[in-house]
């Protein structure tokens, strides 16, 4: 695949918000005018099993699945799921796991997925307005404030990592 396509894999356990996170990421890329494909298998995995979801965007995306070893970003919601998913990441690809949020206070554990998207967003060329609109589209209104805050916290933490603080 040409490097003009960005490959993201979101991983975790059923019930942690993996699919919600990939929906939001795909929507944000879509709203920014990219070709987007998002793919996962859902069904039985809802019952606490391992879940991964692929998001790919760029000028033209062909297969909806990120080939193993070609993910640019691996977002993992559960620390125990990091090891089994690491082979998905390309050499030099970036792991975004809960450890990236050390020291960040989240109002609710439930918005961990969106906080990690905040971390991811700092590395992607997608405007913040698209992220906010995508979050608003995919979450009920009463959760907007908490998730905007989680997103901002993650984004700020990521920028802190870059040494610009």
């Amino acid at each position, binding site marked *: *695949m040409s490097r003009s396509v960005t490959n993201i894999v979101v991983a975790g*356990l*059923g019930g942690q918000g993996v699919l919600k996170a990939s*929906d939001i990421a*795909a*929507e944000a890329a*879509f709203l920014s005018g990219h*070709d*987007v*494909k*998002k*793919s*996962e*298998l*859902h*069904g*039985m*995995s*809802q*019952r*606490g*099993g*391992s879940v991964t979801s692929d998001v790919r965007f760029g000028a033209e*995306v*062909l*297969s*909806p*699945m990120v*080939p*193993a070893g070609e993910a640019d970003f691996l977002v993992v919601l559960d620390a*125990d*799921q990091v090891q*089994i*998913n690491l*082979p998905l990441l390309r050499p030099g690809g970036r792991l975004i796991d809960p450890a990236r949020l050390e020291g960040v206070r989240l109002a609710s554990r439930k918005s961990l997925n969106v906080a990690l998207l905040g971390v991811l967003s700092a590395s992607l060329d997608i405007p913040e307005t698209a992220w906010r609109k995508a979050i608003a589209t995919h979450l009920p209104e009463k959760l907007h404030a908490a998730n905007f805050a989680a997103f901002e916290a993650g984004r700020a933490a990521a920028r802190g990592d870059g040494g610009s603080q």
Partner: protein
Amino acid sequence: MTPQRQLLSGDEAVALAAFDAGVRLGAGYPGTPSTEILEYFAHLGGRARWSPNEKVALEVGIGAAFARARALVTMKHVGLNVAADPLFTAAYTGVSGALVIVSADDPGMASSQNEQDNRRFAAAAGVPMLEPADSQDAYDFTLLAIEVSERWGIPVLLRMTTRVCHSKTVVRPRAALPAPPEPDFVRDIRGRVMIPSNARPAHRRLRAKLAGIARWNEAEGPRRVAGEGRQLRIVASGVAFAHAREAAPEAAVFQPGMTYPLPVEAIRGFFDGAARRVVIEEGDPVLAEALRAEGIAVEAKPEMYRFGELDVARIRRILAGGAAPEPAPAPVTPPRLCPGCPHRAVFEALRDLDCIVSGDIGCYSLGVLPPFEAMDTLVCMGAALGVGLGMRATLPAEQARRVVSVIGDSTFVHSGITGLVEMVYNPPSTGHLVLILDNGTTAMTGMQEHPGTGRTLDHRPTGKVSFEDLARALGISDVLVVDPTVNPAGFRELVRERLDAGRLSVIVARRNCLLAAGKIKEYERCDEP
């Protein structure tokens, strides 16, 4: 018509196209990965219903299409086995409106008991089949299926796969189809009453229709060609088209949108002068066999790729000619019954009693995994009853008395009822016990309603089927309704007693699914006058 660009799953795209085309009625039975089609169709404002099973859903669709309406019927691949009886003869009768049947196959068995390739059904029944590669195709091919169905008066199969159903890709809706005439009954006894004297000419008519569709498909049927003229040429259907383009950017790739009848001459022309001709398809070698039968020499994938989904890496290996063993998939955390799931109490009891458990399909299939390991058979929807009765009828008495049939509420409605009739009609000499695990929803597929909940697809009150009344009406005297979680030890003793009572018993183990309980309360509040 919704003109703007949208990001939709394949399921949503089918629903949107059906809505844009003015489909009058959608019917189906929930089944991963097809479930979301009717839900989204209803969400858009379409008229959709869950039927008790796929056979009934298809019959409803046939009736609507006899009435000149546009009808959509959805199911997973194994659902088409259940609906095969009406399918094969609806091919003969044809339709006056449009009848589009979605078969959502599950190569790799993400959430199914087998990975049968339903492209075989198209040839067996003699109905045209369209195979979308992505959501845009799913939208376009749904509209095209309606057009083909109306033009030739024939049911059309739209064959999706899990990857196409559940992937989201960009869709640009196109201009709506011309509106069909209003539904109306026009008598056509010879065309629709399939007694042998009418069915014989109907079969000939079907073959003539298929010949006409084949000519149209050769000349102007749906197809995409990427990278025309290159030396390596690939024919790929469904999502394999997208994978193959990525795996082999140096190749020309041809996607036949309609794979039955296959546009053989168009493919022969595409392959003409190629250095290498390869067919890439998931599942059975359906296209490769069809092309070889027409004298086109093609490379098919090695046998090992019959199993599971294809992806870019696997296609690269196929093209490299590799039959070497594939890397083992990464270990994953398996699914399990939710903490607090009411099924847990049931499977603890069955495990502790060392029952021989004839199981069935639903969340409770997870009773087979540790820490329960309390399921001995699982074949298809409703098989818990028949298989349990067959074992009771033949095992030595001391083993027969340990046999119990376990089936969920939605599965019981789907195809357990006839098993209950079998039990009454051919009772085993040791008696039998049926456990209906009623958690108030079709939990496995994402909390859909069914006739036992007394609510419609969009959660409004309707007629309700009572399992206990039904069992009693069949003449089963020992019918109990219990909540197994209230007193698990008492429940275990009840099962122990009933297993060995020498009578026919039905226990409805009733407690709402933990994940659905809140929603169910909400619906019930709304139902109150």
